[in-house]
């Protein structure tokens, strides 16, 4: 009898203990920064993205509230197969909850599928393809900073309005370039312009003179560069050498980052128009963050919009999981909660996340300053125009995303 009572007591105690453990919230998070650490995009993402993630973790103050947050980082080498292999290992072995950066549209689209299959989260700040929230949207993916539709909409429309009604495209031959060219061409045609032709070059080319000659021969008023990183900088440099701008044609940088302008120098880059959603010198909030960031970067670089997006995206993510109280491992649940909360941070201002996973904030049209106008290193942009978030991105009424109820 005595034995039976103690067994019952023991059993009850064990049961209580077990349910106690279940009640205690799991407060561990693992962040995976999947990016290009060594290739042509490593300056706009790379180590800077990992630093931005670290700063977000520090600024969130969650560690003091008992959360345990780890960051891992890896190089996907701009190869979708390497990206998905790393991602698979991170999810299965390292228990990564959230993917950040994931620049390169080819890699991003591949990882997005995996993230959905395994029910974790991707906040994509690096890739450009607007397909991520349109035809290929996913309940586990948020597209944070920019996309090809927005770039096309902002830069394309502005240039056609300014009289650039005939276009020739110089396109990087992979998912991103195709998406950017497609979206921009649509805007050009819609605004009353005409596309005269396209030439597609392999990713990471060093010589663009042949392509530029073809663009020159087309006599188009605008040569749209649907490429990025080193491809864009070499195109701009060689275009100036072949007298393309001097000959009356205008170069349109459809996607240009501050690091590209820095590496080109103002002498070559001056006068270029393009769109970004973040610039370090926009307001007090962006300046304060950027100065802290730059001090910790090895080459003292200011943050690119991709790196700023990593910080901003994580800050919102941390607010969400804190509001949920813990257990951040169910990807869809966390993303739904993130969508239900308004976003607000010093870098991108107030915004929202739409049902299709598109983060909404204003887009800025910039012009690169002349060397004489720049007051010092990294003082590169003049703000020409601002498009409110609701007008900058693809409207939900045009969306083909299955998550959007019609």
């Amino acid at each position, binding site marked *: 009898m005595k034995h039976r009572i103690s067994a019952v007591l023991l059993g009850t105690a064990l049961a209580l203990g077990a349910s106690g453990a279940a009640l205690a919230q799991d407060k561990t998070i693992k962040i995976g920064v999947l990016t290009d650490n060594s290739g042509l*995009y490593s300056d706009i993402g790379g180590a800077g993205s990992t630093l931005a993630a670290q700063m977000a973790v520090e600024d969130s103050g969650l560690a003091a509230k008992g959360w345990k947050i780890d960051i891992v980082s890896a190089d996907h080498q701009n190869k979708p197969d390497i990206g998905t292999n790393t991602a698979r290992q991170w999810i299965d072995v390292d228990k990564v909850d959230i993917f950040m950066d994931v620049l390169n549209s080819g890699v991003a689209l591949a990882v997005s599928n995996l993230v959905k299959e395994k029910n974790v989260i991707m906040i994509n700040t690096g890739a450009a393809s607007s397909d991520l929230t349109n035809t290929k949207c996913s309940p586990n993916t948020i597209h944070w900073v920019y996309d090809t539709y927005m770039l096309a909409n902002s830069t394309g429309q502005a240039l056609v309005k300014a009289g650039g009604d005939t276009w020739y495209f110089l396109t990087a031959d992979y998912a991103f370039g195709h998406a950017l060219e497609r979206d921009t061409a649509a805007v050009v045609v819609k605004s009353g312009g005409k596309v005269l032709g396209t030439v597609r*070059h392999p990713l990471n*080319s060093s010589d663009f*003179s042949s392509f530029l000659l073809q663009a020159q021969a087309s006599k188009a008023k605008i040569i749209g560069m649907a490429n990025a990183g080193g491809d864009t*900088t070499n195109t701009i440099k060689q275009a100036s050498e072949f007298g393309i701008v001097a000959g009356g044609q205008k170069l349109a940088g459809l996607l240009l980052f501050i690091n590209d302008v820095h*590496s080109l120098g103002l002498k070559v880059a001056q006068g270029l128009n393009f769109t970004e959603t973040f610039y370090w010198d926009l307001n007090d909030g962006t300046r304060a963050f950027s100065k802290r960031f730059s001090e910790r970067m090895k080459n003292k670089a200011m943050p690119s919009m991709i790196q700023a997006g990593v910080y901003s995206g994580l800050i919102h993510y941390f607010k969400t999981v804190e509001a949920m109280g813990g257990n951040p491992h169910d990807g869809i649940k966390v993303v739904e909660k993130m969508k239900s909360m308004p976003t607000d941070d010093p870098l991108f201002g107030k915004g929202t996340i739409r049902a299709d996973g598109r983060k909404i904030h204003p887009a800025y049209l910039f012009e690169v300053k002349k060397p004489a106008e720049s007051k010092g290193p990294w003082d590169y942009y003049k703000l020409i125009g601002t498009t409110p978030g609701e007008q900058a991105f693809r409207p939900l009424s045009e969306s083909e995303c299955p998550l959007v109820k019609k």
Partner: protein
Amino acid sequence: MQALYAQLLVGLINGSFYALLSLGLAVIFGMLNIINFAHGAVYMMGAFCAYFLLNVAGVGYWPALIVAPIAVGIFGMILERTMLQWLSGLDHLYGLLLTFGIALIVQGVFQNYFGSSGLPYAIPDELRGGMNLGFMFLPIYRGWVVVFSLVVCIATWYLIERTRLGANLRAATENPTLVRAFGINVPRMITLTYGLGVGLAALAGVLSAPINQVRPLMGADLIIVVFAVVVIGGMGSIMGSIITGFALGVIEGLTKYFYPEASNTVVFVLMVLVLLVKPTGLTGRAA
């Protein structure tokens, strides 16, 4: 038709880089029997050297054309003395692996310090602007690159094939023991040859700095194509690599015009075809 002429000319300009680089590779392979995978890295070092000369020491483009190849050439000679010479007599594969490793280390170090987007280097004022040739706008700088590389290529060919020094060198690779018996310091000649090959790559780097961004990976992007050029021309054949360099530049330029998507692979398709028909390359001799 006009566009076609323009592409031919642009191809010739790119060809001059291929020629300069593959010439250095051919010299090194012909004399040292080493497949120098570090060639892309020293090409990049040449460009960086020009950048530093300008921005740190205030030395402009023209002196850099001489100083940078010498500086990088000395680096090459130190490399040869401290590492490569221990591989003499071993299989080619060892040299290839060692130089490949060196290239990865050098590129990694540069990338760590200078990032990937590169640094600006302006065209020297004397060579700014361009000429309207009727069928295209030719930047003066590009014209200069073609002429200058042609002169350097022919001078190197003359040095090796037509002078006494070159004759000694060629003899030393055929039969080092015999040549040493004549009182010629063979190891020193080998070191100087490696320095020369590396210096040629660095010279190409300086030439390319005003056209391309000075980037740590600029050599890595180019090296595989240049190897294909050397293989097509015939490993170790000096004239073969010069002619093939220019010819492949032109063929690549035409591909960019007719079917741009294939422009990265056309060189390798050619390489496969040539090797199938003539395994020693176009002008190579059987070993």
